[in-house]
C-alpha cells in the first residue's frame, strides 16, 4: 500500500525520534552513575522512553503546538526532578527507586496528558513529595485543592471571558494558605495512635485531657445557650427599634471583640473574685462561687463570644421584611404570635449560624478563662500548660490536634444540621423507610 505524503513524514519523524532516543539513552547511561548500569533498570527506562515517544507520535502530534511543547517539556521536568532533586540524600526516595519512579511517572503521565485534571494532580503529587518533602502531606492537600479550584474556575472564566475572579482567588489563596498550612501541617504531624493514647489512654494525663475536653464542651454549650436566650431578644430589639442612642448601643455590641481577652478576665475577676464585694455577696447569699468554677468560665466565655451570635441574629432579623410581620398582625396574630410564627422561623438559620460561631469562640477562649478560672481546666488552658511545661515537642501538639478534630467535627455536624438540602434528603429517606406518610392522613 503506497504511503500518503503525510504518513511518510510521520514515519520519518518516528524513525528519527527513535534513533534519537536510543542515542540519548546510550549517552546518558554512564553520566547518571552506577544504578543505571543495571540491565533491568536500563531496559525498563528504555521501554518507558519508547512509550513516551509512541504517545507523542500517535496522539500528541495531532494536538496544537503548545501541547506538543508541554509534552516534551514535561519530560525534561521529570528528568530534572528525579535526576537533580532526588539525588539529594535526605529524600525519601533514593538510588534505584528514583529511577523506577522516573520510569513509572513517565508512563503514567504520558497517558494522562489527555486528561489535564488527572495529569495536574499527578504533577501536584510529584511537586509535594519531591520539592517539599518535609511538608509533603500538607503541601499535597493544599496544592491539590488549589489546583482543583483553579480548574473549575478556569472553566467558568472561559464562559464569562473574565479572569478577574480567578486572579482574586489566586491572591486570596495566599491568605487561606497562611491559615490552613499550619493547621494541616500540625494535623498530620502526629499519628492517629498518638491521638488515641492521649485521649483514651489509662494514664493520669489522658484522664486530665478527658476532663478538660468535657469541661470545654460543657461550658461552651452552656455559654451558647445563655447567649441564645439573652442575645436573640437584644438583637431583635436593636434591629426593630429606632431610638436616638441606637447606633451607640449597636457599636457597643462589638466591644468584646475589640478588647484584649486578658482585660476581660481582669475586669471580671475584679468584680466577682471571692475577695471582691459582689463575689463575696454572691457566695454568702446564694453559695455561688464564680472564680475557679465552671460558672466563672461560662461568664468569661459569654462575655467574649456574645457578639458573634448577636451580630448573626441581627443580620437574620434584618433579612425578615417588617411588612411580613405587619401582614401577620393584620391577620390577627399578636406581636408575640407574630414573632414565634413568622420572624423566628425565618431567622432561625442565621441565629443557628450565630450559635455555631459563638460555640466555637467560647470553646477556644483561653486568656480570660485562665484569669478567672485556672481550675477546672478547659482544653485551651491545658494545652497552654503542657506547652509551657514541655515545649513544642511535648504532648501540647497532640492535644492541639485533638482540639482541631473536636472543633472541625462539631462545626461540620452543625453546618450540616443547618443545611436545607440535608434536611430535605433526610425527609425523603425517612418517607421511604416508613415514616408517617402524607397520603394516609
Amino acid at each position, binding site marked *: 500500500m503506497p504511503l500518503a505524503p503525510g504518513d511518510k513524514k510521520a514515519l520519518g519523524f518516528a524513525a528519527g525520534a527513535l534513533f534519537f532516543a536510543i542515542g540519548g539513552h546510550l549517552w546518558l547511561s554512564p553520566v547518571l552513575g552506577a544504578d543505571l548500569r543495571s540491565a533491568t533498570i536500563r531496559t525498563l527506562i528504555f521501554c518507558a522512553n519508547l512509550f513516551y515517544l509512541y504517545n507523542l507520535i500517535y496522539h500528541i502530534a495531532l494536538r496544537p503546538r503548545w501541547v506538543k511543547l508541554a509534552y516534551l517539556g514535561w519530560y525534561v521536568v521529570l528528568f530534572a526532578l528525579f535526576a537533580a532533586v532526588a539525588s539529594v540524600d535526605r529524600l525519601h526516595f533514593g538510588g534505584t527507586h528514583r529511577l523506577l519512579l522516573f520510569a513509572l511517572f513517565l508512563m503514567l503521565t504520558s497517558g494522562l496528558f489527555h486528561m489535564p485534571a488527572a495529569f495536574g494532580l499527578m504533577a501536584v503529587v510529584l511537586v509535594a513529595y519531591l520539592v517539599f518533602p518535609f511538608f509533603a502531606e500538607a503541601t499535597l492537600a493544599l496544592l491539590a485543592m488549589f489546583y482543583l479550584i483553579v480548574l473549575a474556575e478556569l472553566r467558568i472564566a472561559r464562559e464569562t471571558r473574565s479572569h478577574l475572579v480567578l486572579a482574586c482567588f489566586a491572591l486570596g489563596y495566599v491568605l487561606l494558605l497562611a491559615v490552613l498550612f499550619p493547621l494541616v501541617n500540625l494535623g498530620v504531624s502526629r499519628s492517629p495512635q498518638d491521638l488515641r493514647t492521649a485521649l483514651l489512654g489509662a494514664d493520669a494525663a489522658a484522664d486530665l485531657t478527658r476532663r478538660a475536653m468535657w469541661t470545654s464542651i460543657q461550658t461552651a454549650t452552656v455559654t451558647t445557650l445563655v447567649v441564645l436566650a439573652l442575645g436573640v431578644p437584644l438583637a431583635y430589639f436593636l434591629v426593630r427599634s429606632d431610638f436616638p442612642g441606637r447606633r451607640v448601643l449597636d457599636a457597643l455590641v462589638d466591644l468584646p471583640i475589640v478588647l484584649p481577652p486578658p482585660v476581660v478576665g481582669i475586669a471580671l475577676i475584679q468584680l466577682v473574685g471571692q475577695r471582691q464585694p459582689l463575689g463575696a455577696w454572691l457566695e454568702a447569699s446564694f453559695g455561688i462561687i464564680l472564680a475557679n468554677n465552671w460558672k466563672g468560665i461560662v461568664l468569661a466565655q459569654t462575655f467574649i463570644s456574645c457578639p458573634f451570635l448577636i451580630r448573626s441574629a441581627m443580620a437574620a432579623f434584618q433579612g425578615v*421584611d417588617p*411588612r*411580613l410581620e*405587619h*401582614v*401577620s*398582625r*393584620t*391577620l*390577627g*396574630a*399578636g406581636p408575640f*404570635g407574630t414573632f414565634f*410564627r*413568622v420572624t423566628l*422561623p*425565618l431567622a432561625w438559620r442565621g441565629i443557628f449560624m450565630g450559635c455555631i460561631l459563638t460555640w466555637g469562640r467560647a470553646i477556644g477562649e483561653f486568656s480570660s478563662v485562665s484569669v478567672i478560672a485556672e481550675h477546672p481546666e478547659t482544653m485551651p488552658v491545658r494545652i497552654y500548660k503542657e506547652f509551657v511545661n514541655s515545649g513544642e515537642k511535648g504532648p501540647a501538639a497532640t492535644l492541639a490536634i485533638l482540639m482541631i478534630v473536636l472543633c472541625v467535627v462539631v462545626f461540620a455536624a452543625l453546618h450540616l444540621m443547618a443545611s436545607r438540602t440535608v434536611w430535605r434528603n433526610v425527609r425523603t429517606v425517612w418517607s421511604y423507610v416508613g415514616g408517617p406518610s402524607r397520603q394516609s392522613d
Partner: protein
Amino acid sequence: MVRVVNLTKRLGAFELRGVSFELAQGDYGVLLGPTGCGKTVLLETIVGINRPDAGEVWLDGQDVTRWAPERRGIGFVYQRSMLFPNLSVRGNIAYGLRYHSVERGARAGVVDRVAELVGVKHLLDRGVQGLSGGESQKVALARALAIEPRVLLFDEPLAPLDPPAKEALCAEIAALHRQLGTTILHVTHDQEEARILGRKIGVLRGGRLLQFGPKDEVFDRPNSAFVARFLGTENVFAGEATREGDSTLIRLGCGIVRAGGTGVPPVAHRQDACATNLIEGQVGLCVRPELVSIAPAGGTGVPPVAHRQDACATNQIEGRVDAISDRGALVRYDVATAREHFVVLQTKRDYAASGLAVGRPVALSFAPEAAHVFRWGDDESEGGGHDEIGRIGRIRPIRPIEPGCAPCAPPQARR
C-alpha cells in the same frame, strides 16, 4: 364602612396632612398618587401599624384609632405579596384562621372555599417560592379574604405584574368585589386601574388628599392642575377668566377661549361656581386630549357663536404639529401654539383620514363643554419641584385680560 377623619402622621420624610374621606359599606375606593405621596403610610395608619399623630379611623361606626392591628379585622394586601416563605400556600391562607375562632376541624374547609373563590385551589400544596407574580398576589388576596375582613386594603397589588397578569387579576378583583361586596380601599399610581375598579376616586399629593369623590366627577372635573394632569388630562393651562353671559371667556397665552355655557349641567352635590364653570379671576383650564379636534389650518372648528365674529368665538387655536406618536389604538399629537403646548389624541382611523404630518400648521378646537375650569389655587406652584408631574405642571399665570375681546394674535412663526 370606613371613615378617616383628619388623619395626620409624620413618619420620616413622609407626612400625611389632614386626610379625610369616607367609604360606604361595599364601596370600592381608589386612591391615586405618585410615588412618595404617602399612600402606603396612609394604608398602614388605617390598618394600625402606624399610630396617627392626630385624627381618627372609624370602622363600622367604631372608633378604632387606638386598636392594635390584630383587633381591627382589616385585610391587607401589599404590593409584593408578602407571603410567609416558611409556609405552604395552604399554610399561608390558613394563617389567620386560628385567631378568628375558626375550629381546627373547620379550617381546611374555609381554606378550600376561599382558594376556590380566588382560583388558587390547584396551588394549595405548593410552596410559595415557585409561584408567579399573579399567583402569589392571588394567594395573598385569599389569605386576606379567609379572615372575612371588614375592609380590604390594597397597596398597589397590581403594580409588580406584567400586563396580561395585571389585566386578569384586575378582572378577578372586580368580580370578587361584585360577588362579596366587601368594602375595598385600593391605592395605586395607575389611572387605568382606578378607571376599571374604582367607584370613588381620590388623588393624593405630598400627604394631602387633593380631591375625593365619585369616579366621573374626579376624572371629568378635577379641582386642580395636579389632579387633572395626574388623571391624564394633559392640556392644563393657567388663564384669566371673565363672565360673559352663560359662558366664561378665558384668556390663554395663545388666545381667548370659551368654556362652559348653558350646556354644562352643574354637579348635583356641589354648590360652588366651579360646578357650573362660572367663575372669574385666575383660573385653570383643562381639556382632555381626546376631546380636542385637530384639522389642517384653515378648516373650521366649532360653529361660531352668533353674536361674535372673532376667532375666539369658535374656540379655535392655531399651532403646528411638533410630534406624532403611536399609542396603540390612538395617535398622540404634540402641538405647539403661541404659548401653550397641546396634546391631542385621535383614533388611528381619523389619523389616516386627516393626512397630518409633523411640521404642518393645524387648527385645534374644542367644544366649550369639553373645557373644565377650576380655580387656580395658591398651591399649584407650591412644592412643584417635588415630583415629576408637579415639575411639568408649573405654569406661569399671564397678565390680566384687557377690557373687551382683543382680536387673537396669529400664532408666531417658529424660529
